């Protein structure tokens, strides 16, 4: 039982001990926004792929597909631009 408690204490305090060893923390706000944008980007890529599949399986006419594809690509480009801006901000030297 003592061994279990000792292991538990070691596990719980690991990050606290590491913090005392001065590991730099990630840029939290920028990291979170970037993560959201990356998830949105991945979802947009899926949408683009699915729209093409919808066209190829006959659910969309070519005209409809091209229109939707154009919109989706524009949305994807906007997400990539925002992602680049967030990453540039995170990489910029502070102060």
């Amino acid at each position, binding site marked *: 039982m003592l061994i279990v408690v000792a292991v538990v204490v070691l596990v*719980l305090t690991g990050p606290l001990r590491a913090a005392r060893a001065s590991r730099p923390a990630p840029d939290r706000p920028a990291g979170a926004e970037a993560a959201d944008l990356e998830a949105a980007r991945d979802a947009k890529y899926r949408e683009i792929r699915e729209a093409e599949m919808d066209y190829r399986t006959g659910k969309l006419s070519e005209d409809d597909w091209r229109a939707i594809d154009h919109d989706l690509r524009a949305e994807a480009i906007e997400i990539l631009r925002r992602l680049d801006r967030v990453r540039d901000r995170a990489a910029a030297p502070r102060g």
Partner: protein
Amino acid sequence: MAPAGRTLLIVALFICGYGIFASLYGARTGRWEWADSGRRAVYALALVTTIAWVILEAAFLRSDFSFNVVAAHSSTTTPTFYKLAAPWSSQEGSLLLWVWLMSLWSSLILFLTRARVREIAPYATAVLLGFAAFFTSLATFFANPFATSATAPAEGAGLDPLLLHPSMMIHPPMLYSGYTLMTIPFAFAIGALITGRLGSEWISVTRRFALAGWLFLGIGIVLGARWSYTELGWGGYWAWDPVENAALMPWLCITAFIHSIMIQEKRGMLKVWNASLVLATGILAILGTFLVRSGILDSIHAFGASTLGGPFLALIALMVAGSVGLVVSRRADLRSEHHLDSLLSREAVFLLQNLVLVALAFAVFWGTFFPLISEAVTGTKHSLGPPWYDRYTVPLALIVVLLSGVGPLIAWRRATPANLRRAFAAPLAVAAATAVVLLVATDAARRPLALTLFALAAFVLACVAQELWRGARARGAIAGEALPVALVALVRRNRRRYGGYLVHAGIAVLFVGVAASSSFQHVNQTSLRPGQTARVGSYTFRFDRPTVAVQAQKISLGAVMSVFEHGRRVQTLRTAREFYPDTTLGPFQAPISRFFTGEPETQVGLNAGLTRDMWAAVDVPLTPLQSALDFRDRQFQMALRELTTKRRLAAYIQARDVVVDSLAQRWAQHPWAADFRLIVSPLVTWIWIGGIIAAAGGLIALWPAPVAARRRATAAYRSRLGRELAESGA
């Protein structure tokens, strides 16, 4: 080992408390090492509860009756296979199982997201540890699995005979895995609402856990139905029992959520709806556990009323209040980014499907809690039976089946009438042809709702087949692959989509089994002596001969039946009524009849086939034996009182066993009329087959694509879009 188990529960409580503090402190102060420490508290909880679980299982395997729970739910004669399952037949073991599973799934999600959703994760961790603390507290202070008695009995009470079934080995862990997995999207939704990080990321990290919760709970529901069909002696698989409904409600809501999050991911719509839905699912998962554990509603499943009702109600009230408060406070951030482009779109179909699924869940909720509502209002508990449920759920289920075929064939954003005509022509033709064939060749016309379901199921299967065909053909044309290769590659590349289509097909098949077996079943409840027959549909059942088996743990009085069709024997069925000893009696009470008066169980005689099941259950009344039992009881009570030595005790036991055996053998030697429930049911097997297909589809949808393939897909699009960026002068 029991003291070690009790200590581990206390340690688990401290871990939960520390983890909640550390997570919240880290999140509020931005000291992320504390948030990481809080995450590790979940890992530590998993370690501690795993050890506790192993201790409990070992106690069952050893038949250590110093553990109260082992003495109450196991015995030395319980097969090892069922000793392993016995912990979760008890209140105490169930609570520990809940915490253990919860800690494992929580550890997994937090490990997988340790570098992601860093702002949300600490709050999610606190919520998950809060649930764990609640259940650990119940296990520690109200129903401790490690409680012991000073004097251990020589033998345990044994497992409830109803639970001696393979399905019971995995049905509760599946249900509890489903419930605990559903708390994960709930916790992350709470974290997202608290932090205001309401983008796609929290959904993308928890989506698989929502799907896994759907899968496990669905498997648990189907296993429970199978157990009911083969064990409970009434011949049905679904009775709208409160505990069945308790699992169905969150399952319906998570089904809706799995579909509607696709709309949020793609279009940034339905954010309020999705947040509300996932929070409701988490609440219903806890509510489901509450219904099973509190005994508040009468149910053949409930394991006795307990004192846990109050704490559960308090937790549910807190969850409801907190969820409503958070959604209302964040309603501005939950505004949709886009609107519905067209009613002829997959988004519109998903929205309609969501509404129907939630309506179904509400109907089940109302029917389940109506006894409590009526008691509160009128002072009398009124229950709603299957006819009430069928009136509301059947039409809604038909709509769900229809939409499960329409959804895959309609495009996102907008579809044109011309495209819809092209997409639906063949499936509609298949549905129409199916209806015509059934009308002409069968008596399906007398059950219009069942006929409608059959046609809709054919429609769904045709839609799925068409999608697979067209998708494989398109892929084959692009990649130059042969059709079978293209089909496999298509599914591998789009697991979520085609796994989902397979689920739709499985559900359609399952509903075919449900509709056929419930609408075209033949039942005969009758009393027969050996040689007598009973008609069931086009079959004749004959009671051939009685059977007797006397074992240490039970007495089995049964029947062998022959089944004839058009004068030709087609099947032999064996069914029995098993009588267990009554372990509640004192040593001098009913020394002989006690072996016949414990909780009886029915061994069903079942012949399952692809086209029909034959089902028989016998109930052998003991009235003809009663006077003999009473006489022998008096005789052996006197003998018992005169026992003075161990040798005389051995002789007494031997004589008692001979008498019990001879009384049981009277059924074989001079059989009397027994009551039989005889059923012929078409297409029941397709319920289980449909469940397996749906589960396979769920697994495919759940399975992650290879990392390399994901990277290739992302890189390809990045390069294409990068070129466009350059061309646009960005």
